[in-house]
């Protein structure tokens, strides 16, 4: 050990050698803890998971919240009736608060029951009857508080009542009550509330019977009530307005009525949009003065989940703590083959959740986050491009292994291919690159071959992705592995894997399209295409240059039309973009959620839908309409294969890649299995706080010698400086002083 290391501080008592650092020691509390520990002493050794948020969540209302950074919170607090099995793949729905996953009952126009295999055309409605488990209770909340007579303590509060209230913790009384089916119905009604602005109202309005009309009715009623109250916000009692598509059957049963067949509703029933909201809580937060104090349901989620949000300071920290009223739920005792060997069933049968508290701190930059992860102050971390080489080594076959430094720290790596796709799209209504003629098709296929996404993944994502062969990612029904799953228009099969077709082949296709050597045979002019993009930083310049070079391979000139985000969105909405980059994250693990991105009536320019390429192939659309309501099986797979083949041939997208997530875990974290669909995973996590405390202490001993050295040097420099100072006291002034010029 070097001499430097020999005077490492121990970070313990306020001993003499560190007298010069008295202030720092005092700040550290002269405690047993490392000086750089950012957490309070009271949390030392506690069963707490530490995480972060980069930007504050916009909405925590389950009817509004849709972003990944919001679901991190709402997913732990709210409990919809269903959830995804933590371990089973493909993703499987299991009951959460429901007794069972409901099976739909089909009805014809006259309300008569139809058999389960009734043709789509005959099915007028699907009815889902959901039975909720009794005995589930909400977290403590003031809205549930009742006095000795059973009346609500905090009902219809006035602004004066809130004079000294700044957070929910300022209310003296709290209470709870049992979860009932009516709470789920109330939340479905809230999707149509004019002030809630639920992002799924438009979509659900197509399916839930009467929801669209209900939204119009509520808008009208709300407008009247608001006008009567002087134009401000008012509480709208939704229980007074029935909705045909959602009704309470009994205390623990409710029914959702859907127009026609919509089997994907079950997936929506695993999202917070369909979680229960108690009417009294909504009423409580609608009291005058609450909104001015940020005490809204949009900021204070109230649920039956394993955790409750106890600190909600989106400016600094958000804290989830164990819900004392959480119902019985146990770690799954079954999973996929290999899960047991991976240690994933070690907690089978144990009661959930394992963690007492989860602290999310505001961390806006990746570098401090990464450094704090290495110091043990965060339990898990993604890997940014800046730190990728520190953490991971990519093997020749693209396999990722941890660096020795990570291994020494006991860090482990879990990877998973995302249920998402990042692609380059062609605007199919563009006169040059769009259209369904052979010429345009061959042009798009040629470009698809030339754009080397393997290289893109290697350069710009550090190898974190797999080239896409079609719209459906691995892990979703309809995705085909191996040679049969390869896109034959872009890849061949050689050496046991897909191999991108040659540039010569791309040039041949280009020539057949009438653009031999990048020149339009009709006009004799060079082919110029436009990439519409919104880009800013230096890393974007490299990406854009890469794109330019890919097109240059075919002698096609690529013009980068870089605009700000808003103008780019305008172009996409108006169908004025030509080539663009886009992506999609699955809402649910069903091929319909990817293939609808190519469904004609979903076109962005004409129908304001999610089909950004404005692809419209009648045959594809016909097959999609058949496929979307089918159960998974060989017949559905056959339709999907035909659709995917049509799309590959028409090439409205260069299929791009499916991103791969890399997550690092410290040694004190229990084994976890990436589950990209579930949003309530915190309850399955477990840590060893003792090991964490020991390793943190070991890794973070303060190193004092450089500081002492710097102080010593300063003191040493002070001696000659003082001597020099004294000498100059009575010396003649410098020449410049006499001249009067500085």
């Amino acid at each position: 050990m070097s001499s430097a290391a020999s005077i490492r501080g121990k970070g313990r008592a306020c001993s003499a050698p560190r007298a010069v650092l008295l202030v720092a020691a005092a700040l550290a509390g002269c405690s047993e803890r490392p000086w750089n520990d950012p957490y309070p002493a009271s949390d030392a050794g506690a069963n707490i998971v530490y995480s972060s948020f980069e930007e504050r969540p916009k909405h925590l209302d389950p009817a509004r919240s849709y972003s990944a950074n919001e679901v991190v919170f709402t997913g732990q607090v709210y409990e919809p009736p269903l959830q995804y099995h933590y371990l089973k793949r493909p993703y499987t729905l299991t009951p959460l608060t429901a007794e069972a996953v409901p099976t739909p009952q089909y009805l014809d126009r006259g309300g008569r029951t139809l058999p389960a295999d009734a043709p789509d055309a005959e099915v007028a409605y699907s009815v889902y009857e959901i039975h909720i488990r009794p005995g589930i209770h909400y977290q403590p909340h003031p809205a549930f508080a009742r006095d000795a007579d059973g009346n609500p303590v905090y009902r219809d509060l006035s602004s004066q009542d809130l004079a000294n209230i700044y957070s929910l913790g300022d209310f003296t009384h709290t209470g709870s009550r049992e979860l009932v089916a009516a709470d789920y119905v109330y939340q479905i009604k809230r999707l149509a509330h004019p002030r809630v602005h639920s992002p799924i109202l438009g979509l659900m309005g197509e399916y839930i019977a009467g929801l669209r009309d209900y939204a119009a009715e509520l808008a009208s009623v709300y407008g009247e009530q608001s006008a009567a109250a002087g134009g401000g916000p008012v509480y709208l009692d939704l229980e007074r307005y029935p909705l045909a598509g959602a009704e309470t059957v009994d205390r623990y049963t409710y029914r959702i009525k859907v127009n026609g067949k919509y089997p994907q509703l079950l997936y929506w029933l695993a999202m917070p949009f369909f979680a229960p909201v108690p009417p009294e809580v909504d009423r409580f937060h609608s009291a005058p003065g609450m909104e001015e104090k940020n005490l809204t349901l949009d900021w204070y989620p109230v649920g039956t989940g394993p955790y409750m949000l106890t600190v909600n300071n989106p400016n600094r920290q958000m804290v989830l703590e164990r819900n004392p009223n959480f119902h019985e739920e146990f770690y799954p005792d079954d999973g996929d083959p290999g899960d047991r060997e991976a240690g994933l069933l070690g907690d089978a049968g144990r009661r959930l959740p394992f963690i007492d508290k989860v602290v999310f701190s505001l961390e806006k930059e990746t570098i401090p986050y990464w450094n704090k992860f290495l110091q043990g102050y965060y339990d898990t971390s993604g890997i940014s491009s800046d730190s990728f080489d520190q953490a991971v080594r990519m093997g020749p076959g693209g396999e990722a292994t941890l660096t020795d430094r990570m291994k020494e720290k006991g860090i482990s790596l879990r990877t998973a291919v995302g249920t998402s796709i990042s692609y380059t799209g062609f605007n199919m209504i563009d006169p040059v690159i769009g259209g369904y003629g052979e010429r345009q098709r061959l042009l798009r296929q040629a470009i698809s071959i030339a754009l080397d996404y393997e290289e893109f993944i290697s350069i710009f994502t550090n190898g974190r992705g797999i080239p896409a062969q079609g719209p459906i990612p691995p892990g979703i029904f309809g995705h085909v592995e191996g040679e049969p799953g390869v896109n034959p228009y872009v890849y061949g099969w050689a050496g046991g894997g897909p191999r991108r077709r040659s540039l010569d082949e791309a040039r041949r296709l280009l020539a057949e399209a009438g653009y031999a050597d990048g020149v339009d045979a009709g006009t004799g002019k060079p082919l110029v295409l436009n990439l519409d993009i919104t880009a800013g930083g230096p890393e974007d310049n490299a990406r854009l240059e890469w794109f330019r070079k890919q097109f240059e391979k075919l002698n096609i000139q690529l013009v980068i039309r870089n605009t700000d985000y808003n103008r780019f969105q305008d172009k996409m909405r108006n169908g004025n973009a030509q080539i663009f980059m886009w992506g999609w994250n699955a809402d649910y693990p069903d091929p319909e959620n990817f293939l609808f991105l190519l469904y004609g009536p979903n076109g962005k320019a004409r129908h304001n839908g999610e089909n950004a390429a404005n692809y419209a192939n009648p045959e594809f659309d016909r097959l999609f309409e058949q496929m979307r309501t089918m159960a998974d099986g060989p017949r559905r797979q056959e339709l999907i294969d035909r659709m995917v083949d049509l799309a590959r041939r028409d090439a409205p997208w260069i299929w791009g890649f499916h991103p791969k997530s890399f997550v690092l875990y410290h040694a004190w974290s229990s084994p976890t299995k990436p589950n990209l669909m579930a949003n309530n995973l915190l309850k399955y996590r477990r840590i060893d706080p003792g090991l964490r405390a020991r390793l943190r202490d070991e890794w973070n001993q303060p190193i004092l010698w450089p500081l002492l050295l710097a102080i010593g040097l300063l003191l040493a420099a002070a001696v000659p400086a003082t001597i020099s100072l004294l000498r100059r006291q009575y010396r003649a002034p410098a020449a410049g002083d006499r001249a009067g010029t500085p």
Partner: protein
Amino acid sequence: MLNYILRRALYALPILVGVNVITFVLFFVVNTPDDMARMQLGMKHVTPEAVEQWKQERGYDKPVIYNGASAGMGKLTDTIFYDKSLRLFVFDFGASDAGRDIGYDIRQRMWASLALAIPVFIIGLLTNITVALLIAFFRATYFDIIAVVTLVVLMSISGLFYIIAGQYLVGKLLHLVPISGYDDGLNAVKFVILPVLIGVIGGIGSGSRWYRSIFLEEIGKDYVRTARAKGLPESAVLFRHVLKNALIPILTGAVVVLPLLFMGSLIMESFFGIPGLGSYTIDAINTQDFAVVRSMVFLGSVLYILGLMLTDISYTLVDPRVRLN
């Protein structure tokens, strides 16, 4: 002086109106109310009806500055500008486009900004004056040349470099303080030590060089020669005479930024996870939250005008020859 302050306060009104108009025009050139609505409503499944409803609810369905469809004064008052601006003049910032009370957030966040900005300001000022005096004392020596070169190097380095290097060295390698984070009250001290240190070091280059110039200019004046002729030692000349007279430009330069300390530091707050007003403004720009942007621009304008007024007043305090008329 009271008359002067009142007059300046009245002059400030048209300036604030002008700043508001410019903010409005600039913001709405880049972001239309439709863009703002889409940003707030999210990217998936947003219908045109939802966009219209959002705009109507927040008053963004009106013309921005001029409403040709209204009659009389309504052409000016029935606009987004009028609706959103008038309340600002009584410091009623209203709710952000995301629905949070802006005044509450400002009150919460300004303490974090001040916890960082005040120590940086005071320690930085004292350090810069000390360094500049020391260099002025050793003027026209090798020490002076080396010091000036060092200052130029220091001021040429990006602020971001100081932050990353400081976090790496002090937080990551030496483990002396947390790399980032924040806490309330006295617990905040351990989090602000490093950013304050970096803020001070980052400001030494430009600050000390400027103050050195001021000191050298004073040193060449007649009263300094007189002081020396009286036989005063050099330290007495510097501290008793030069420093006192040089304080006029130093003080006025410092006072003008005093109110702006509330506004926080954009990069520093972001890198150290300090929830101040600087990061609040940046977040609002990124999320196109116009309500927050206009509030922060307005607040910044008011504080800047206040700073200029304080500067004028401070002139009278440090230089008896100056009178405010």
